[in-house]
């Protein structure tokens, strides 16, 4: 784990989360929680012509879970759903610039799981 991460990049996203807002007229949404550690993430957004037009998250939990959600939502805007649905664990770790053990990995992946669930539900309906 990079010694500086709590001071810099992730802390900035944790303290000043991007896209932590309410979106009106969203057409996809989902939520995930991890009762084992208390992390919660919900994601909602607007898809137009297969592209993420707007996206937001809400949640509570540790720095990694909340900062990752902030970073992931930034990555999503303007991207096609078909591309985002293919995002993997490794993509997330690249985004947050960390290597994590199995326990903290769950914190990092909760927002991706939530995003994928929301997108899959959207694709089923549309």
């Amino acid at each position, binding site marked *: *784990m990079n010694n500086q991460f709590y*001071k810099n990049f992730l802390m900035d996203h944790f303290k000043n989360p991007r896209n932590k807002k309410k979106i009106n007229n969203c057409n996809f949404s989902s939520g995930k929680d991890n009762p*084992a550690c208390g992390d919660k993430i919900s994601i909602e957004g607007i898809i137009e012509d297969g592209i993420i037009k707007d996206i937001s998250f809400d949640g509570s939990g*540790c720095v*990694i879970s909340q900062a990752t959600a902030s970073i992931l939502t930034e990555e999503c805007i303007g991207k096609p759903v078909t591309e985002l649905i293919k995002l993997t664990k490794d993509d997330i770790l690249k985004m947050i610039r960390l290597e994590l053990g199995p326990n*903290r990995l769950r*914190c990092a992946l909760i927002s991706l799981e939530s995003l994928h669930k929301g997108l899959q539900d959207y694709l089923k309906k549309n």
Partner: protein
Amino acid sequence: LPWQRVVKRSGASLKFIKVDTETFLFDHAGKDLINEKTKLVSLVHTSNVIGHVWKEGQLESIIQKAHSVGAKVLLDCAQSIPHQKFDVQKLKPDFVAFSAHKMLGPTGVGVLYIKKDLHDLIEPYQLGGSMVHDASFNESVWIEAPGKFEAGTPPIAQTICFGTAIDFFENNVDFNALQKHEAKLCSGMIDGLDSIKQVSIIGNKEMLKESGHLIAFTVDGIHSHDVAAMLAMENIAVRAGHHCVQPFAKLIGIDSSVRASFYMYNNMEDVNTFIRVLKEIVKGF
């Protein structure tokens, strides 16, 4: 978890000895839950979550009550054996379980003590090599305990290492001195933690100052996993989470806590470093 499984299989019901959520003391009156329908009483000797230790006589009276109605008693000593001398002849539990990795030993092995007069009543929980006295096509006879409970190739290296760890205790550890040493560190730790207003200790401070060896706490506004990760950056190893007792965490309304455990290799300088680093974390977060 094992008791939930037993209940599902047998149709028995599961009852819990309460923990006072203000004082963090086990309800000694829990022994009133024991009646002639009780089959097994499972007790934690020292709590791995809040460091609770039973007061003199409390455990004895629960075990006596259990035995008086014909119930068996299992003591989970995983958290206590590494810190205190324990005599099965004195407390007379029917079963005692503990792990090697909590007592300077390797992972993957532990001890299950079964009182001798129960050896023949208990069937092996798994089958494999080295446990058979005589096998034919339709019937088999097991060797005597403990062999019949040790099916298959054992973890040989771990068992040898575990033996060495036990020898180390026998030859080098004065448990009375160890307990005093740990309690002193706990006491210093509690005073230090109490000086940080964002910190809440999960446990009975008086008891821990007197005879504890671990302190669990939460930090207001910082998730326990983050506290642990930041402490780790300063080479301080703690555990964070619900410590495998999620129902208790739910009971007291937290999702996790940080747990610092002391042992023979810690000293007061470690406590002072811990408190200094934690203050920096709280200030910088």
